[in-house]
């Protein structure tokens, strides 16, 4: 058993909105962080809903810790920490009350650890959550998700409300969390710079379809974008092209191996590519 989370051909259709999550498959190995990237409405939250059983999938399988999680599998949910975007907890509670409630849910709830996080994140335990700033509520949610010693963290846009300094702090917390070999994180975000810092794998989703899952090292060291003129583009082998996008006077072409492309097409400029640019090319460009 080497994957903490596996999705096999997961599908879900919402007839009212006409959105379909279309046969999504990926796996998250133990000890790693997977960035789950896609534009708003791409299907990230629906996928997470299918993983956590808040949404019933139409087809496919989701395995957590090697097992399909049913409603009765509370022992599996003991090992998962979740953070949603926005207000996770009732506003009239205090962090202290939240801890008391959580103690009743989790057998492994660690009040001392929760208090430590509150202190580290500079959160006041007796202040009502509705008086917290957005950043503070997100930090509280992260503290709550970590304080029952989970093995898997599922974070749905958990860093989106935080300023760059807070985000950096949280990313350090996530990196610290995956120091344990059996800990993993699925981090859905459209802030690609965060994922560039911490993720081991990146999964791209667009319009309910999984475009690709790739290791970040591959993306950083191998993927590249070729800046082609029309004539240069026409001369490219189709197999080398992952996606391309026509701009005013050039065509940007995403390739899986920049060095090989440079060797093969000597007169074309080959640049390093950021996650943002990859996302733009995959979403707005055309795929071959």
């Amino acid at each position: 058993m080497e994957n903490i989370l596996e999705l096999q051909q997961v599908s879900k259709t919402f007839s009212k909105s006409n959105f379909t999550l279309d046969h999504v498959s990926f796996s998250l190995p133990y000890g790693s962080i997977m960035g789950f990237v896609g534009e708003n409405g791409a299907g990230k939250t629906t996928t997470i809903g299918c993983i956590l059983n808040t949404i019933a999938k139409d087809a496919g399988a989701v395995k957590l810790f090697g097992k399909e999680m049913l409603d009765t599998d509370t022992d599996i949910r003991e090992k998962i920490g979740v953070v949603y975007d926005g207000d996770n907890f009732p506003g009239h509670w205090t962090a202290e009350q939240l801890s008391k409630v959580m103690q009743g849910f989790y057998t492994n709830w660690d009040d001392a650890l929760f208090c430590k996080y509150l202190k580290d994140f500079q959160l006041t335990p007796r202040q009502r959550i509705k008086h917290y700033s957005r950043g503070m509520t997100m930090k509280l949610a992260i503290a709550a998700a970590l304080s029952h010693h989970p093995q898997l963290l599922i974070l749905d846009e958990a860093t989106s409300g935080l300023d760059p300094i807070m985000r950096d702090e949280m990313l350090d917390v996530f990196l610290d969390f995956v120091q344990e070999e059996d800990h993993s994180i699925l981090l859905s975000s459209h802030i690609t710079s965060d994922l560039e810092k911490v993720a081991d794998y990146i999964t791209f989703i667009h319009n309910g379809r999984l475009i690709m899952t790739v290791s970040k090292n591959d993306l950083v060291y191998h993927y590249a974008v070729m800046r082609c003129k029309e004539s240069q583009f026409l001369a490219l082998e189709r197999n080398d092209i992952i996606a391309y996008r026509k701009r005013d006077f050039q065509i940007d072409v995403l390739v899986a191996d920049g060095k090989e492309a440079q060797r093969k097409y000597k007169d074309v400029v080959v640049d390093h590519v950021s996650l943002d640019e990859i996302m733009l090319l995959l979403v707005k460009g055309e795929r071959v």
Partner: protein
Amino acid sequence: MKGLLRNNIYGTLSNAKVFAGFMILYGIFGVAVISQSVQIGYVMIGIIGFSVSAIIVAKNEFTTKWGKYKLTLPVRRADIVKSQFLNQVIWLLAGSCFVGIELGLSWLFHGCLFDQPIDILTLFALAISMSLFMGAIFFPLFYAGGEEKGEVFWMIAILCAFGIDYTIVTILNSMLEPGITCILCGAAALIVSSLAAFGVSYMVTIRIFMHREY
């Protein structure tokens, strides 16, 4: 279940504290004046009011992501429903205690203000029955019809509960001769029918909630 009950109690407390403040003032007034109408109002408002505070918790959970978040916690969906029904019973009992204390004090100072003491039993039966019917109607509607329509559903639930109890009482009054038997049968019918509805509603709500998506 402990976490769910704590969650519901904390949720209800914020509303119930305000309502309890109002009931204390109303109770002081009720003890101070000699009025059967005030006592009837106190029993009905007290028991039903605390029950409303309890069912509103379910609605409030969906103004944040907490309602969805709870599904990711180590609890079964059936337990979430069970805790909400239990919470309503807990607050119904709390309301009954509140009302009982006020009636007791009033009796202590002024004697029984009702035509006969057994009328108090009928009044309690009516208020408890209305509260149970209200919960029995609210929860399945709430989960089947959508959390965003919570306010409308609890108003519908109160009106329907009143309508059902009124119908039961009217039928029994037409069938039985006035007297102690009629009063006792009426009270029993109200309690038994509302408990049965509460039980059936509990099972129906679980079935509905098992298929809800968030």
